[in-house]
């Protein structure tokens, strides 16, 4: 159960190996009141080890336990199974939908690679959002955090498939928020910019680059405030207000890095 200070008792991270997903869970553990973190992904041992290294060594109560469950975003039905496994001992109060891949140039050029990426970033993520909402509506409460990206706000050629997948997911979640109004279920859309993480290792950073812990801090504050969308860093909201409205020729020039 979510406690009276707003701390989720049990957190499930779908895509438990994700740096940002892990950082969000670690941030809530640091703030106190979390009883269990369930990491759902393909490599349980590795995920748990990395999370233990990341979590604060002296968290408030020291009581948060870490568990892992299997989750492979390429398998249909995987989200439902992971959510059911995580809820076996009681309610899951916060679900982070974090599984995703950035892709390479191949994913923008080869059809089968593009559909592969869309399958993970869009199809599986939409499935996860819907399964989480079903679970939350049944238990009467719950908060969902979905990782979108500024890359989906105005998609550039070099990130065509990734950007399209995030654009689709972001739009879907915006529509879900309409449906959830008054249902006791919150959905937060997270729009990070360039984040230094395993996903972007070796890439040249974009302006306003940030790190997983900073994104997690922005997410925790937005969850506490019950907001619908959070940009990380927050300045990107204004940067993209301009970028989204640039005439196409100028956009091509500024985005064609």
């Amino acid at each position, binding site marked *: 159960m979510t*406690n*009276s200070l707003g701390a989720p008792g049990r957190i499930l991270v779908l895509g438990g190996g994700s740096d940002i997903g892990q950082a969000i869970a670690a941030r809530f553990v640091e*703030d*106190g009141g979390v009883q269990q973190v369930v990491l759902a992904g393909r490599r349980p041992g590795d995920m748990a080890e990395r999370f233990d290294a990341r979590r604060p060594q002296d968290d408030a109560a020291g*009581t948060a336990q870490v568990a892992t469950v299997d989750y492979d975003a390429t398998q249909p039905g995987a989200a439902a199974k992971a959510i059911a496994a995580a809820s076996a001992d009681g309610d899951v109060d916060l679900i982070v939908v974090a599984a995703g891949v950035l892709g390479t140039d191949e994913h923008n050029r080869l059809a089968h690679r593009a559909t592969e990426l869309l399958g993970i970033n869009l199809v599986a993520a939409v499935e996860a959002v819907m399964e989480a909402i079903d679970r939350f509506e049944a*238990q*009467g409460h719950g908060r969902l955090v979905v990782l979108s990206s500024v890359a989906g706000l105005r998609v550039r050629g070099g990130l065509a498939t990734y950007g399209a997948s995030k654009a689709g997911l972001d739009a879907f979640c915006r529509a879900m928020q309409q449906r959830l109004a008054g249902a006791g279920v919150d959905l937060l859309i997270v729009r990070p910019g360039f984040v230094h993480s395993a996903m972007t290792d070796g890439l040249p950073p974009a302006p306003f680059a940030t790190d997983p812990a900073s994104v997690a801090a922005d997410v925790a504050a937005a969850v506490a405030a019950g907001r619908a969308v959070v940009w990380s860093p927050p300045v990107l909201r204004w940067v993209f207000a301009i970028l989204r409205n640039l005439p196409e020729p100028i956009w091509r020039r500024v985005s064609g890095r």
Partner: protein
Amino acid sequence: MRVEARRPVEVVEAVVGAAGRGVLARGAGRSYNDAAQNGGGALVTQPEPTITIDPTTGRATASAGATIEQVLSVLVPHGRFVPVTPGTRLATIGGCVAADVHGKNHHRDGSWGEHLTAIELVDGHGDRRHLDPVATPSEFWATVGGMGLSGIILSATFDTIPIRSDQLAVTTTRTGDFDATLAALAEAEDGHRYAVAWVDTSATGSRRGRGVVSGGDHLDAADAARGSGEMAYAPGSPIPVPPTVGRGPALIRPATIRWFNRLWYHKVPRRATEVPTSIGAFFHPLDGLGRWNRLYGRRGFVQYQSVVPAPDDVLAQLDALSAGGATSALTVVKRFGSASPAMLGFPCPGWTLAVDVPTAVPRLAATLDRLDRIVVEAGGRIYLAKDGRTSIPAVARMYPRLGEWRRAVDKLDPQGRFQSDLARRLGLRTGGPT
């Protein structure tokens, strides 16, 4: 889903028809936490109060949904008073049983459950049960203090006390430090039926723990000045705090708390004074201000109430709060008498501390976790009707009879129909984490 049960048979129907997320009785919703919430499940309210009293024996029966205010408005004209009253007159009788509430007379009269002679309960089979402390002690003491998880209480029968006036004589004493507060409290307990200490949290250093101790008794005879021997109870409507206050910046914040505490302390005369006081002003002062929670702004506040064996353990908690920047707006200290036989009862011999802290205080979770550690290590406990944030392992250590309570509740409700958000959060029922 909410079910308004106007007759007992409708309560039975709600229990038998409970789906996976279970069913829970909800009274007036005055506990400070999720004790009367059941996310995804059913809540049963019993909106039609019935109150009867036998004027010769003073024994009264009230339906679970009747509030302390409604009960007093029947009792007082008969020259009777409830054996125990919590700090709000808006609590229901069902809630008083389920939380085994205590009042300012705990040092001599114990908790609510000790004045009960019978409870009518709908158990998990949907059967109406008559519980009393002699014939069914296990079921009875699992229900008293059982936070509504053993069944749905329909009514309770309890002994009342005689009063000869609707006023109280209240003596207030200002104290200079914590030792003086303790001494004055001990003196007030010896001399009065009701005793409690308020602590000024703005005071530091040598004045730390100073406060105001009040001792009260029902007046012996009708106040002569009033000219009439008739007793009445009409607390009047509260002055509401408007909703706009709740949406703006919090009025109660550390700076204003310190000012308020200082003023409150200095408003009390230096020398002990006795003044006649109404029932409402003495027992339920906060009820005079409707929706006072709005003063804390949008983020609200948390109340933390503990009982620990020694006064030093109270000081340790006050110090931890102050080190964490968690200045309490309203701080109450009292000594408890002996524990009731309720398996999950809160009061036990020792010192209770209640604090109200704004939720917006930074790192409040860590500060309250430190209080938990002080309480657990001292062998104390925190109050389940007020906790909103403790941990599952801490509760198991605070309530050593949890296993015994679970077995008793399982007999009344083997299918686990009675559930609450509190029970889920703290894993209270069998099958929950231990």
